[in-house]
């Protein structure tokens, strides 16, 4: 990918994100009272992260089987309310070990 197109991507990302944050702060002084809109915005982060995680998580590593084991590990520790860093490192460790075992078998 050329540096110019990479810069175009980054420029668009930064501009859109900044305008979203800036406009309400400088233009609006009243609060949103529409309950539907507020509820929608409340649920957005969960929908985004759910859709981004599955099915992409299955192809995030070399072997799908290792990704499944790593994903289950992450689910388990996330349910136990461990920190973000702990869950991420635990899932990666399980993937690393599983992939070494898979390569020994194959």
């Amino acid at each position, binding site marked *: 990918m050329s540096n110019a197109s*990479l810069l175009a991507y980054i420029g668009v990302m*930064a501009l*859109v*994100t*900044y305008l979203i944050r800036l406009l309400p702060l400088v233009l609006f002084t009243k*609060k949103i009272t529409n309950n539907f809109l507020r509820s929608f915005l409340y649920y957005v982060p969960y929908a*985004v992260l759910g859709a981004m995680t599955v*099915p992409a998580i299955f192809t995030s590593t070399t072997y799908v089987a290792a990704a499944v084991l*790593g994903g289950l590990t992450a689910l388990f520790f996330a349910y136990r309310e461990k920190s973000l860093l702990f869950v991420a490192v635990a899932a990666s460790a399980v993937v690393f070990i599983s992939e070494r075992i898979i390569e020994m078998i194959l």
Partner: protein
Amino acid sequence: MINNNFTKGLHDGVPIGLGYFSVAFTFGLAAVALGLPLWSPVLISMSNVTSAGQFAGLQVIAACGSLLEIALSQLIINMRYALMSLSLSQKLDATVRLCDRFLIAFVNTDEVFAVAAGRPGEVGRAYMFGLICMPYLGWAAGTLFGAAAGDFLPASLASALGIAIYGMFLAIIIPPAKQNRAIVVVILLAVALSCLLQWLPVFVGLGSGFIIIICTLLAAVFAAWRFPLKEAEFDE
């Protein structure tokens, strides 16, 4: 006056900055793993200062998506900041001038907003400027270190770390889902739609950025319709 002290703000920003360092480290790693040059994730972090949006942006860039696709993905994923900025605008006191708002808006992340909103009464300009320093620094430095580490990483470790961001996403959405059945429904619906759009041959060619936008809109609209929030839940 109590809430307009630069040093106090700087102090309150330290734990956010430390947390950001590790998340940004993963972002830098992920970007380099996708084949991007080292400078680009650092520039993304320094100009965007947002986690989910940046990760989604990476996926669109890696898939060589269109500029419209990346703009829409940022719009949908970062839409929640509009609500936070709106809420923050009610919280700033008279020391905050119009030009100050242009800087505060730039680093109004989920956590910065949460800390500012948690202060009793109004917050002033000096406090806000202090508060945004460490998170910004942690975010930028974490990305640089992650990207640099990714350059020397062996393939086996890079593969294992590929799952790290998804582990992090699960750690963000699972704990609140334990308390709230509506959130469980939102997540399951978004996941089911995402698999459907990704795997059904009819939708081949639909960019991953658009898939995320469609899933998000459908799942969040459905939940807002079926499970509208009560007033108290907005403070969470």
